[in-house]
């Protein structure tokens, strides 16, 4: 159980600032997702926590102990954490089993114990039978799973994941999500999870941190982030929402202002006989429904999930069941 | 008659081994630690030790007398005036007993058997038939070659002009004796100036070379041996010198294929009778004094 605290942390690479004034707390046992567009500093933040980068300013603490500030730094090997890299970072000179067993070595486990745990970790990621394979001869997704197993094998109390599921198919992904949820529940580890996939973030995390341009945009539960985004960036980034003028008069939660924007989620849009007139701009099949982009009279676009295929240019009328006044 | 003896020598490997073995056979209590190398290397080693302040050898046994003379002038050699010199011609050894001649290694002419002109004298090397076909050790690289050069220029009537004529005839001066033998037996050059034992020994094995003692006479190095002042085992060193100068030691030289320095010891096979070998005179002290001038003179003539 380890609480991770970042206090006014900043990080620059030469002249360019990757992170600015980040103050965050990851409570012990929490499961936090870092969400944000490419290049917003998610990986950098994770590397600061892991100890691969030293903050330019501010302090990183684990459970009150200073891990790093502007002058000192506890090296990563003494922080006792697990990490999955975006690039996997598997060791090409070891086979799959050796890669996974590596963190167990030098911790006083017997051979049989190491083998047992390794097999267990490989089973968790459905790679039983791949023990003796060279990692160079694995497919992309297989490699990612090896990296995952390597991180899970020791049962550390801090787990850092940098887009651990980016190369997995939906099913493996779902299975992995379950592995994480289980691990989390079982060990109570503090998990920080970088992702660009909001559905992952929404489904898994108990807290989501949205980053943009190296700054924190919003911190909150998935429901809060999705339902009540703190600003236009979050509103636009999380979920497939449409930001439209408040002047359309959609009933909106939050502090309404006629000059601001309101956020409308696709599932809140229905076609009715009586709604606002709109025309169909674009269609995209998603399996469950057709993601349909509608243009309102003033040119605002609205995305709706419709059960049936509409023709491009078709005139329809829309009603909005729910909307959120986005703070300016 | 026990303890060790450190010997630095430029004798060939096998000869050095035989010499040490023979001495140790005679004095089983004494262990000879010998190091052999080419004269430049062994002297560089010794000089480095000197510079570092801890010279190692008790005895030096090297090819040329000029180097010995230099060491003597620097006061590095121990005089062994009581050495038993019976059977040696007058003037062969250093008069103060600083160093002693152990054998005679003469320098004459070698030719490849494919050569059309068979040289008999040094003068023959300036003939047009030898144009571009002469190899000789460079006195700049080899001390023995320097002695040879000085001996010839002192004794031949032309003096240095002989060397100018050689240079004009395209003679090539480089390296040591080993290279000359390779060049002549390999046929790259037809004639060479070289120490006697190498071609005589190789010819016996069938190499296409022959050695000539030129009519004017030959130069000789005497492979002098000396005790160093810094010697840790001076008594053993004296025993070693006595051994080399003894009849037994001289027979060893014969058996190795060298002309022994001591009169009355037979010459090895392949050599003419001792009386047919005319050794030209040589003044080591003068050579040392003029060493740099001689080198400059030679370098000038051969453009080195």
């Amino acid at each position, binding site marked *: 159980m380890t609480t991770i605290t970042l206090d006014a942390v900043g990080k620059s690479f030469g002249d360019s600032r990757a992170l600015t004034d980040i103050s965050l707390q990851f409570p012990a046992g929490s499961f936090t997702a870092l969400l944000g567009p490419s290049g917003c500093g998610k990986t950098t933040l994770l590397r600061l926590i*892991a100890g*691969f980068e*030293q903050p330019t300013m501010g302090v990183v603490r684990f459970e009150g102990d200073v891990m790093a500030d502007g002058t*000192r730094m506890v*090296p990563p*090997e*003494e922080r*006792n954490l697990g*990490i999955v*890299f975006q*690039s996997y*970072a598997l*060791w090409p*000179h*070891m086979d799959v089993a050796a890669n996974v067993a*590596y*963190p167990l070595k030098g*911790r006083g486990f017997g051979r049989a114990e190491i083998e047992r745990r390794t097999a267990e970790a490989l089973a968790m990621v459905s790679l039983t039978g791949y023990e003796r394979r060279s990692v160079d001869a694995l497919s992309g997704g297989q490699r990612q799973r090896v990296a995952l197993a390597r991180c899970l094998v020791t049962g550390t109390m801090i787990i*850092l994941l940098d887009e651990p599921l980016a190369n997995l198919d939906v099913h493996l992904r779902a299975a992995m999500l379950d592995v994480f949820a289980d691990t989390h529940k079982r060990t109570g580890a503090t998990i920080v999870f970088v992702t660009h996939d909001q559905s992952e973030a929404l489904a898994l995390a108990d807290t989501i941190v949205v980053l943009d341009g190296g700054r924190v945009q919003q911190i909150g539960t998935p429901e809060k982030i999705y339902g009540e985004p703190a600003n236009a960036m979050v509103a636009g980034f999380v979920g497939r929402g449409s930001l439209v003028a408040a002047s359309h008069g959609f009933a909106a939660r939050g502090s309404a202002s006629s000059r601001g924007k309101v956020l409308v989620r696709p599932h809140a849009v229905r076609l009715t006989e009586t709604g606002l007139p709109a025309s169909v701009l674009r269609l995209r099949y998603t399996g469950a429904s057709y993601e349909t982009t509608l243009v309102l009279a003033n040119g605002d676009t609205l995305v709706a999930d419709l059960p049936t295929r509409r023709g491009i240019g078709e005139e329809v009328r829309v009603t909005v069941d729910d909307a959120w006044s986005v703070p300016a | 008659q026990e303890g060790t003896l450190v010997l630095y020598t430029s004798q060939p*490997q096998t000869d050095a081994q035989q010499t040490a073995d023979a001495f140790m056979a005679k004095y089983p209590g004494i262990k000879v*630690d010998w*190091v052999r*190398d*080419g004269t*430049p*290397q062994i*002297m*560089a*080693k010794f000089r*480095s*030790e000197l*510079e*570092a*302040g*801890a010279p190692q050898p008790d005895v030096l046994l090297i090819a040329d007398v000029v180097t010995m003379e*230099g060491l003597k002038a*620097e006061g590095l050699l121990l005089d062994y005036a009581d050495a038993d010199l019976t059977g040696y011609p007058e003037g062969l050894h250093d008069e103060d007993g600083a160093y002693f001649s152990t054998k005679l290694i003469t320098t004459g002419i070698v030719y490849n058997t494919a*050569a059309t002109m068979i040289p008999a004298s040094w003068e023959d090397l300036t003939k047009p038939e030898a144009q571009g076909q002469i*190899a000789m050790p*460079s006195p*700049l690289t080899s*001390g023995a070659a320097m002695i040879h050069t000085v001996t010839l220029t002192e004794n031949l009537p032309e003096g240095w002009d002989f060397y100018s004529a050689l240079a004009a005839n395209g003679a090539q001066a*480089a*390296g040591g004796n*080993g*290279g*000359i*033998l*390779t*060049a002549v*037996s*390999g*046929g*790259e050059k*037809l004639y060479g100036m070289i120490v006697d034992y190498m071609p005589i020994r190789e010819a016996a*094995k*069938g*190499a296409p070379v022959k050695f000539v003692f030129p009519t004017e006479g030959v130069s000789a190095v005497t492979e002098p041996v000396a005790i160093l002042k810094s010697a840790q085992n001076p008594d053993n060193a004296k025993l070693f010198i006595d051994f080399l100068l003894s009849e037994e030691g001289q027979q060893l030289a014969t058996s190795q294929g060298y002309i022994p320095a001591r009169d009355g010891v037979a010459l090895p096979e392949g050599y003419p009778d001792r009386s047919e070998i005319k050794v030209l005179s040589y003044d080591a002290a003068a050579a040392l004094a003029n*060493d740099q001038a001689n080198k400059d003179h030679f370098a000038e003539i*051969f453009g080195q």
Partner: protein
Amino acid sequence: MTKLAGRVTPALLAILVVAILAALPLGRLVVTALVGPSGIDFAPLLARLMRSATQKAIFNTLDTSLFGALLALAIGAPFAFLVALTDMPLRRAQGFLLLLPLMIAPQVTALAYMQLLGPSSALLGTFGLAPAPGTANPLLGRGGIILLYGVQHAPIVFITLRAGLTALPRDYVEAARAAGAKPWRVLLDVIVPLLRPYFLAALALAFVSGVGNLGIPALLGMPANYFTLATLIYQQLAGNGPSVLPQVAMLSLVIAAIAIAGIALQSLGQSKTGFAIARGMPARFALKTWRWPAAIAGLALISIILILPLLALVTTSLVPAYGVRLSLYTVTLDNYAEVLLRQASTTRAFFNSFYLSGLAALILALSAVPVALGLRHLPPRARSGLHGLVDLPYALPGIVLAIACILLFLRPLPLIGSLYNTPWIILVAYLMRFAALALRPVDAALGQIPPQMSEAAAAAGAGSWRRLLTITLPLAAPAAVAGALLVFMSAFNELTVSALLWSNRNETLGVILFSLDEAGLSAQASAIAVVTVLVVVILLLILNRLGSRLPAGVLPWR
């Protein structure tokens, strides 16, 4: 706890190693060269520099080393590509054979080539092509020296480059081919620039090897009155007056300056600090119809640079004396019997050379990774400077390094006592001389290991030592083994360092060879060379047997 301890300690240790291996001997030479009876005195150095012989030798050294290095690159690089990146038939055998020239001492190589092309050439003689007796050997002089530098140092280029090529992932190559680039364009646009650190390392090593070579210019240059600094120094030593050491030391400083200039040029070429190369399936080119033509061309080249001179050596070793034509009547094994059976020193020398060079290779290979890693903590400028310093003892003629070692280690030192007259002084000299051979390839390899490899291990709880042992070392192993082989083979045949440092019963192969050469016993020298090649081939074959248990890419020919 602090970042400083983590970064500065390895760097300091690395600097210490470099100081001991390189700065120490060089500093000792500077003292000898410049400190006269009346304090520091630059006048003699300047006077020496002004002599036309010195200037000519400087020019010759630069000239032959540079073109020799380029020729070595021209020979070694295509082989490295063919062996590492293509499906050329017999590529393992070819990679193996190409290593052999390094195992033959330069003197012997030179001798073999001279035999091959001289009037007594058995080979040319058979076809009636041998030059008439009295014809000067065509190899004498500049061209021959450059040619032999190229041949002798091609294996260095080959090994260094191959270490890089095996780490090249196929995606880089395939991305270029998909972009429409023909294989040769891929080579020029992608592979060569990606491997630039390896190329520069190879070129630098080949250049410096040329600067420090004595054997080849001694045999091919001196007879033609063509002097390099190394042969000039050798000649100087023959003067052996009391002032010889300072003079030799001065010339050595000139050599050091040349090597520094060459190395500085190299770091100019290395504009960036390098870049990490992702790992992945290694790249492969299919030669298709060119498979056998390439193999045959390779074998032909190998025949010229290895087999023919080797045959010449064998021929010479089978006749009773150099210059005798080989025939049914003259053939004899007497030379082998003489050196192997009658001279106990030869077998001893084989053993001594084997364990001294083996030990040197082992120590250098093991320490190259930590040292190179430590140096990586330094700013790029300082780093390349220190690497340059390590190259210097390799650039000096061996005999000069040996003198420096005597000056350093003759007097008993605290803790270790006097190394003089023990084999260990030879070992130390080997470590000094060949450190560059081990460090260069390893440094090039380290630059291309992605930092995440080590970071992942740190996150797994591995401290810096464990990371070094379990991650960095194995990943750099191919380069380290390549370096070790270079060290071993160079030291096994080395003559000039041990010539001054050997003591009774501690003779090395080089010492024996030199003495035979000096005595004009070329036939016996050839016999030893042939045996040497055989011994090393057997050693390599044993290594090859073990090769299946080593990580991929470790053995340069696999």
